[in-house]
């Protein structure tokens, strides 16, 4: 009964959107694979919703193109694009029942009424709202409304699915359920999907790739692991996860490997970005779990002043301060025996991948 339509590619090419004089989206390019889930992640006002609205056809771009399966769709009005969208506030039709909401797109397309009934049942089953057909949206909880919005968007079998912060209004447990649910639906229907969020955990867990946006630009478009481990810009580095930033100077450069002396006292080698020269001031970013405490001094260890230690789930978070005044967070697995107090040196953990950024003064 279920015919999975072939998944589509979605290409956004050099897209720019202006509201008056203000740039909301600034030269964004994304090549999205068939059946892929891409998360748009970024702070409020960075242009995520605007980008979705251009793809859906509600807003015209100043320049650039949107292609589905290689063909541009820029000339098509929103009602001919066959792109499903779930709005941040769901935008259910308040005067229609759940069933009428789900049927809306089918009726607009002139689907036979027996087929309409079949699809209402099927998609309400999928989102587990079969018993709610005759309710009005205002008689539903936020999570139920969100599932109706999803069923309504999916019922017309769109070629692309756009989700604008669909889980923002849900509590933690329900959010996790819905994330899994959406991922499962998207898999079975083979839908190329863009998910807008400013929750990085959500982006990490649901998306195949993440586009981190800032001020209308895409700063990095990569897999979650790559974004976490190899942030390309200082913004991405600070936005994803927690990180420690320390000041330092490049002491030597050799075959793309830089030897860096920390202002806090230690020195070590790490892979250098392209545009860096000897003597340059740099910032070194290390994740909290890539630092370790030690009681022995050495060339790769720098002195710290230990602060509070807080248990956080299965982990222990130590606060510390370097001699040049930077504050550090260090995460260790919680051990059976309590840590001794003599550990006043900090080192890089064995698998640490610190990242180097030029410091703009």
């Amino acid at each position, binding site marked *: 009964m279920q015919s999975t339509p072939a998944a589509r590619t979605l290409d956004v090419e050099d897209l720019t959107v202006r509201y008056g004089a203000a740039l909301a989206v600034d030269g964004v390019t994304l090549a999205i694979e068939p059946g892929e889930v891409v998360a748009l992640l970024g702070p409020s006002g960075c242009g995520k919703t605007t980008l979705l*609205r251009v793809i*859906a*056809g*509600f807003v015209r771009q100043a320049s650039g193109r949107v292609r589905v399966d290689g063909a541009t769709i820029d000339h098509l*009005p*929103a*009602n*001919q*694009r*066959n*792109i*499903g*969208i779930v*709005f941040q*506030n769901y*935008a*259910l*039709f*308040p*005067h229609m029942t759940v069933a009428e909401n789900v049927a*809306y*797109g089918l009726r*607009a*397309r002139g689907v036979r009424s027996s087929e309409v009934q079949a699809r209402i049942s099927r998609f309400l089953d999928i989102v587990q709202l079969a018993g709610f057909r005759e309710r*009005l*949206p*205002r008689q539903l909880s936020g999570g139920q409304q969100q599932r109706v919005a999803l069923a*309504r*968007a999916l019922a*017309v079998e769109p070629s692309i699915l756009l989700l604008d912060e669909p889980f923002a209004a849900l509590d933690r447990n329900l959010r996790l359920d819905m994330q899994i649910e959406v991922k499962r639906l998207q898999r079975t229907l083979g839908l190329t999907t863009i998910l807008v969020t400013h929750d990085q955990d959500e982006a990490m867990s649901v998306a195949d790739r993440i586009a981190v946006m800032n001020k209308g630009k895409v700063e990095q478009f990569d897999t979650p692991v790559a974004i976490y481990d190899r942030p390309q810009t200082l913004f991405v580095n600070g936005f994803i996860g927690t990180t420690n930033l320390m000041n330092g100077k490049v002491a030597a450069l050799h075959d793309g490997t830089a030897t860096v002396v920390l202002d806090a006292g230690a020195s070590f080698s790490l892979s250098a970005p392209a545009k860096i020269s000897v003597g340059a001031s740099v910032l070194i970013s290390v994740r909290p779990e890539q630092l370790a405490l030690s009681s022995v001094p050495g060339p790769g260890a720098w002195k710290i002043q230990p602060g509070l230690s807080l248990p956080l789930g299965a982990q222990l978070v130590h606060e510390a301060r370097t001699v040049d005044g930077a504050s550090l967070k260090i995460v260790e697995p919680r051990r059976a025996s309590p840590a001794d107090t003599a550990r006043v040196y900090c080192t890089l953990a064995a698998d640490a991948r610190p990242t180097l950024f030029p410091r703009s003064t």
Partner: protein
Amino acid sequence: MIKPAEWQLALPLALAFASIFLAPLLMLVGVSFFNDDKISQPGLAQWAKFLGDPFSYKVIADTLLLGVKTVCATIVVGYPLALVYLDAPPRLQKVMIFVIVMPLLLSVVVRTFAWIVVLGREGVINQLLISLGIISEPLRLLQTELGLVISLTQIEMPLMLLPLISVMSRLDPNLRDASAALGASRWRTLFTVIVPLSMPGLVAGCLLVFASSTTAFISQTVIGGVRLIYLPLLIWQQSLVVFNWPFAAVVSITLLISVLTVVSALSWLGRRSGGYVHG
């Protein structure tokens, strides 16, 4: 200090309303049950005279029909205007609101006389139509119901537009986008989403326009003339020309009841559709 109960606080106002509105109304009802214009012999003669005359029913029907025609015309012109307002950029919206509200700042008398200039034999409309070669003889617009409906449409337009715009601009703009994304054309979106959701505003507008146009004595007489007879003109003739106050009271009560009937039917409809908007 003892705090007065809430109803006690409202008492002065209630008394003022009672003396200003309720007392005259009761007096009006009382006056209608006298047989002679000296108001000396109680009886049902005036009611019998009014209700026994087929002419009375024609005037009632004409009055209500005038209201219906004006309401229809304000919807036909006003609804698209409200849609244009909704899509206009904010700066244009400010200008539009000013233009919409401005007629309310002018006296009805001034507006009505302006329509005489527009509708007359040598008026703007006739001159335009003749110079365009659409007609050769001037149309007769003054002292016709057509002319009256045209001018009432303009005069009552703010009463239709203001409630309509206030309800429509509270609608979630995403609803239209959601409808389009689901494949609906603009017309389908209009009739299945926007019109049903703007019903409360539309009903409120109809209510105001109907009540106002059926009782618009100045416009009815100045533009309609004495040949078009509506209930307000009848009241005026009976009370201030013939001085038959009991009969005038009968006509007044008839006008009140017929307008109230239509208005309550409309507001019942409005309440039925009102739940959707804030839900």
